[in-house]
C-alpha cells in the first residue's frame, strides 16, 4: 500500500507550519493591511476632493483584486471584465430607476447573473491560448459596448442612464462623499478578504497550478477547464458588485463610461500588474499608486495635453511588462531577499 498514509510526525508538522503561513499570520497581515489602507481616509475625510480620490482608489483596488483572481492567480488575462462591470452597473441602475429596487437587494443576484454569463462566454474561449484568449475577451467587451448602445429600451442607448438623487441608505445613495468612501472600502476589504481566503484554499492552489503548467495540473487530478470556470465566475461576480457600487456613486452611466478599455477593463489588469500580479496586496497597492497619480495628471493637463494620463499609463504598462513583471510587491520581496542575504529558511 501507499506510504503516505502514515500520520505525520510532530516535528514534521512544525516544519510545515514554517513554510506555509498560518491562518493567524495571513489574516493578521490582512487586518493590518486593511487598517493601513483606511489611514488615508481617516486623515483626509473632511476634504471632499481627496475623499473622492480615496473612494475611487478603493473601488478600483477592489476591481483590480477581482480581476486578479482569474488574471493573477489563474493566469488567464481577460481584457473583457468590462462586461461583468457593465452587467453590474447597468442592471442595478436599470432596476433601481424602473422599479425602485434597492441595490443592496439586487446586488447579489446580479452578481450571480454576471457569474453565469462569465461561465457561458468563457467556456468556449478558455481553450484558446493567452493572446488569443485576450483577443476573444476584448471582442466580448466590444460586443457589449455595441449592445449597450443598441438596446435603448434597456440601457438608454447612447444617452445612458441617469439615477435620480434619492438619498437614503436603503437606496445606496449617500449625501456625503465620505459615506461612499466607507462603502468602497468595504468593497475592497471584501474582495481582498476573498483573495486571502482563496490563496489558502484548494481552488486557489488549483488556479495557481493551472497558471503554472496545465499539463502538470492535469497529472495532479485537476480539472483545468472547471477550475478556470470557477475562478472566472468568482472574479466576474465580484467585478459586478463593483459595477453596482460604481453606478450608485456616479449616478450616471453610458456605454463609453463603462466599456472604454483603457479606463475600465484594461485598467483593472494594469493596476494589478503595477502592484504585483498574482499577489494579494498587489492590486490595491497598484491602485493606491496609480489612481491619485492619474488624477493629478488629468487635472494638470486635461486642457493643454489631452490623453497625457493614458499615454503615461500605457508607457508604464510597457515598462512594467519589461522590467517589473512582479510589480511593486515583487520588487519589495526581491529587496527583502537581498537584504536577508544568505539567511535562508532551509534547514540543512
Amino acid at each position: 500500500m501507499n506510504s503516505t498514509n502514515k500520520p505525520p510526525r510532530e516535528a514534521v508538522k512544525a516544519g510545515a507550519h514554517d513554510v506555509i503561513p498560518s491562518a493567524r499570520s495571513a489574516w493578521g497581515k490582512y487586518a493590518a493591511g486593511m487598517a493601513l489602507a483606511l489611514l488615508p481616509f481617516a486623515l483626509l475625510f473632511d476634504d471632499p476632493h481627496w475623499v473622492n480620490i480615496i473612494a475611487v482608489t478603493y473601488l478600483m483596488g477592489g476591481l483590480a483584486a477581482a480581476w486578479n483572481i482569474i488574471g493573477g492567480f489563474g493566469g488567464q488575462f481577460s481584457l473583457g471584465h468590462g462586461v461583468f462591470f457593465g452587467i453590474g452597473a447597468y442592471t442595478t441602475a436599470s432596476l433601481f430607476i424602473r422599479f425602485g429596487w434597492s441595490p443592496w437587494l439586487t446586488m447579489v443576484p446580479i452578481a450571480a447573473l454576471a457569474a453565469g454569463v462569465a461561465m457561458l462566454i468563457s467556456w468556449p474561449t478558455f481553450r484558446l491560448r493567452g493572446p488569443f484568449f485576450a483577443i476573444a475577451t476584448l471582442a466580448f467587451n466590444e460586443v457589449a459596448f455595441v449592445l449597450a448602445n443598441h438596446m435603448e429600451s434597456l440601457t438608454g442607448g447612447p444617452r445612458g442612464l441617469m439615477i435620480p438623487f434619492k438619498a437614503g441608505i436603503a437606496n445606496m445613495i449617500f449625501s456625503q462623499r465620505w459615506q461612499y468612501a466607507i462603502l468602497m472600502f468595504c468593497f475592497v476589504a471584501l474582495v481582498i478578504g476573498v483573495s486571502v481566503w482563496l490563496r489558502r484554499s484548494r481552488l486557489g492552489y488549483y488556479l495557481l497550478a493551472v497558471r503554472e503548467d496545465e499539463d502538470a495540473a492535469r497529472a495532479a487530478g485537476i480539472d483545468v477547464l472547471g477550475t478556470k470556470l470557477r475562478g472566472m465566475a468568482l472574479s466576474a461576480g465580484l467585478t459586478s458588485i463593483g459595477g453596482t457600487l460604481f453606478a450608485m456613486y456616479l449616478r450616471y452611466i453610458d456605454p463609453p463610461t463603462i466599456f472604454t478599455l483603457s479606463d475600465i477593463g484594461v485598467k483593472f489588469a494594469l493596476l494589478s500588474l503595477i502592484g504585483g500580479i498574482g499577489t494579494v496586496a498587489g492590486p490595491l497597492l497598484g491602485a493606491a499608486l496609480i489612481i491619485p497619480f492619474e488624477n493629478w495628471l488629468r487635472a494638470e493637463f486635461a486642457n493643454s495635453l489631452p490623453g497625457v494620463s493614458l499615454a503615461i499609463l500605457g508607457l508604464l504598462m510597457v515598462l512594467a511588462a519589461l522590467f517589473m513583471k512582479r510589480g511593486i510587491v515583487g520588487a519589495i520581496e526581491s529587496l527583502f531577499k537581498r537584504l536577508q542575504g544568505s539567511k535562508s529558511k532551509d534547514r540543512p
Partner: protein
Amino acid sequence: MDQILTVLTVGILLGGIYGLVSIGLNLIFGVVRIVNFAQGELVMFGMYGTYFAYTHLHIHPYLSVFIVAPLVGLLGMVIQRLVIQPLTSEPNMQIFATFGLLMFFQNTMLAVSRGEAYSVGSMAGTGVLELGDLKLSSVRLVTLGAATLITIGLHLFLSRTMAGRAIRAVTQDKRAARAMGINVERTFLITFGIGAALAGMAGALLTPIYSITPAVGGNFILAAFAVVVLGGLGSVWGAYIGGLIVGIVEAFAGFYIDPVLRSAVWFIIFLIVLIVRPAGLLGQAGAEEVGFREQH
C-alpha cells in the same frame, strides 16, 4: 438582385481595406507568433505621416507611401527589438506590452494633435466609377487594387527571395530553422519591420477614405484579428481572401440586420473559426497551434 449586387460590391471594397490592413498583422502573427495589439496604431501613424507629407510637403497621399512605409517599418523594428524580443517566452506579458504601446501611441497622438481630426479631403478623390448601375468609389477601388498588388508582391517575396524563404522556414519551425543556421532574431526583426511597413502603407492609402483621428486604429484592429484568424496564420493569400469574406459578411449583416452590429460580426467569425477550424481557411498545418500551444 440589384440590391444584392450593391451590397456585395460594398462588401468587396470593404474587404479590400481589411485585407490591406490585415496583411501586416498576419505576417507578424504568423512568423513572430505574437499578437500585436498596436498594429492599428501603426496604421494611424501611416495616416498622420501621410497627412503631414500632404500639408507640408504637398505630396499626394498615394505617393507618400514611399516615405511613410519605410519610416513606420523602422518604428516596427525598434518595437520588435526593444519591446517584443525581451519578452519572447512570456506571451502574457506581451499582451501588456503591446496593449501598453497601443495606449501610449494613441494618446500621445491625441496630446500632440489636441484632439483635432484631420482629413486629406477630396484631393485624392471623390471620384466614382460607374459600372452599369453600380457606383464604385474610386479610392476604394484603388485600395482594393493596392491590396491585391501587395498580396501578390508579398507572396513573391516569400517564395522567391532568400529573406522570404528564411521567414517561411522560421514560421514553420523556429528550432529547425535555427539549426539550419538561420538567424531567427534577425528574421523576426525584418518581419516585424515589413509588417509595420505594410501597416504604414495601408495608412497612407486609406487617408482619402477615413478621417484621421488618434483612435482611427480602433476601426480596424478587431476586424483585422478576425481576418487573420479566418484566413489562416502564415498565409498571405489567406489574409487577402479573409479580408474579402469579412468585408462581404459585414456588408450583408449591416444591410439586412443592423450596421451597428459590425463588431459582433467580427467577433462571431473569430470565435466560430477558432472552434470549428482553428487553422483557418488557408493556414499552414501546425499554425493553428499558435492559438492553442506555444511554438518551441
